[in-house]
């Protein structure tokens, strides 16, 4: 997303919304995440029970019994796909973080603008979200504050937690970094947190995709594939167009 969207052919309302590197890392991440979710369930089916602490096994009391069938035959491909996709996600994520910091994408597009943090503005955003009312006009050219919070939490809380809890289950990594066990309260606690945080990410994905439909699936998908976004014209009722006071 550029700060000053430039008008492009064929119409003045079509703007360059997402940079090529954002689109590329977005879709690589999407493919890797879907592969991780599917293979993660395949791995989970070998023992669909969650424990707290260091140890846990069939015959020991579980913190949570998931209503899933037990299947021991999906572990092999599940693990191979999980770690292939994990490498794609991690390497892609590192590239994204570096370019986003250095190139100013974070400061420009993801950190909420000062006007967006005003209580009146936030209240209006919440009300608009509740009525499934997408932003129009100039407001549609920046992420709204709730969207920015969601992206920042996913980027800096949920994905790091996934990677760290995943590594805590690795006997090879924890041999070098036993601190990981202390961080999460043991291997089984890390496994449980890995599942719970993954569930939050799936929840994010569901809301994210739903918002694409609310905001106009054709326009938003084109923006994330080709980069070009058609700005929805302003309505007479000026919903989210207060001028930034800065």
């Amino acid at each position, binding site marked *: 997303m550029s700060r000053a969207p430039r008008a492009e052919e064929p119409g003045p309302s079509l703007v360059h919304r997402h940079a090529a590197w954002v689109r590329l890392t977005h879709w690589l991440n999407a493919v890797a995440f879907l592969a991780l979710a599917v293979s993660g369930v395949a791995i989970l089916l070998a023992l669909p029970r969650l424990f707290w602490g260091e140890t*846990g096994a069939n*015959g020991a009391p579980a913190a949570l019994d998931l209503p899933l069938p037990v299947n*021991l035959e999906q572990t092999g491909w599940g693990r191979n796909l999980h*770690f*292939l996709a994990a490498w794609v996600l991690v390497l892609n994520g590192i590239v994204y973080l570096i370019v986003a910091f250095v190139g100013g994408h974070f400061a420009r597009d993801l950190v909420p603008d000062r006007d967006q943090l005003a209580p009146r503005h936030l209240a209006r955003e919440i009300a608009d979200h509740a009525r499934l009312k997408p932003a129009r006009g100039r407001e549609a050219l920046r992420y709204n504050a709730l969207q920015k919070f969601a992206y920042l939490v996913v980027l800096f809380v949920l994905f790091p937690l996934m990677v760290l809890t995943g590594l805590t289950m690795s*006997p090879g*990594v924890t*041999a070098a970094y*036993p601190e990981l066990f202390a961080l999460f309260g043991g291997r*089984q606690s890390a496994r449980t947190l890995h599942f719970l945080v993954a569930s939050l990410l799936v929840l994010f994905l569901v809301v994210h995709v739903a918002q694409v439909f609310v905001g106009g699936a054709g326009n938003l998908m084109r923006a994330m594939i080709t980069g070009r976004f058609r700005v929805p014209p302003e309505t007479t009722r000026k919903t989210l167009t207060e001028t930034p006071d800065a």
Partner: protein
Amino acid sequence: MRDLSRRRLLTGSGSLIGAGLLGGCEAPALSRLASPYDWSNGLTFAVQRWLQRHQPLVREFGPESISAVFPTINTTDPDDPDYRRSKAIGFSDWRLPVSGLVDRPGAFSLSDLKAMPTRTQITLHSCEQGWSAIGGWTGVPLAHLLAQVGLKPAARFIVVRSVDGWWDSYDLFDALHPQTILAYGMNGGDLPVAHGAPVRLRVERQLGYKSLKYVSGIEAVERVDGFGKGRGSMVAELGFPWYAGI
């Protein structure tokens, strides 16, 4: 140049680190990069070897941490006539042949092994199915046994065979690690049959499937591509990576 540095390192300190790094490219994790999974599993192997470059020990627990529930999977009582006969007489006729690239090949009885230096370690066992349990293991370090028979400088891998037909291989980085032991005792008593009596391997920095039960033979070799389908282990032919550090 690679050969020169290899010779220098091996004849010099004979350090575990040198052996591990040099074994690297010939290791089954890196020698066969045919599919995307081979690449991602190879990357995992290379990164974990780097993380473990100072040969850390895994955590060890006190006796109070030993799990009440420690599952046994796959073979729990080998259906082999010789094994059954030996079991009936308390494994008094059991012998462990050590062969291959060693100066003094031999066969060791259970009492031979018990007369060697003993190591007891209470560690977390992590299974690829998702469960983990803490158990205490008593046995002789594999490094000691290999020193007894005189490992030749050309040896790079240790192939371990099991009564039930399983086999696996280990590079010297893991084989010579202080916590890699041939265990004949568990939780203060004899090793139970279900856990691999009379002797099982413990490879603590990898998943449970690398800790072979019912050890029936040890062979030091330069390469492992001549064994089975050339993938370094039996489970690798079933889709589970040779290196199981995660």
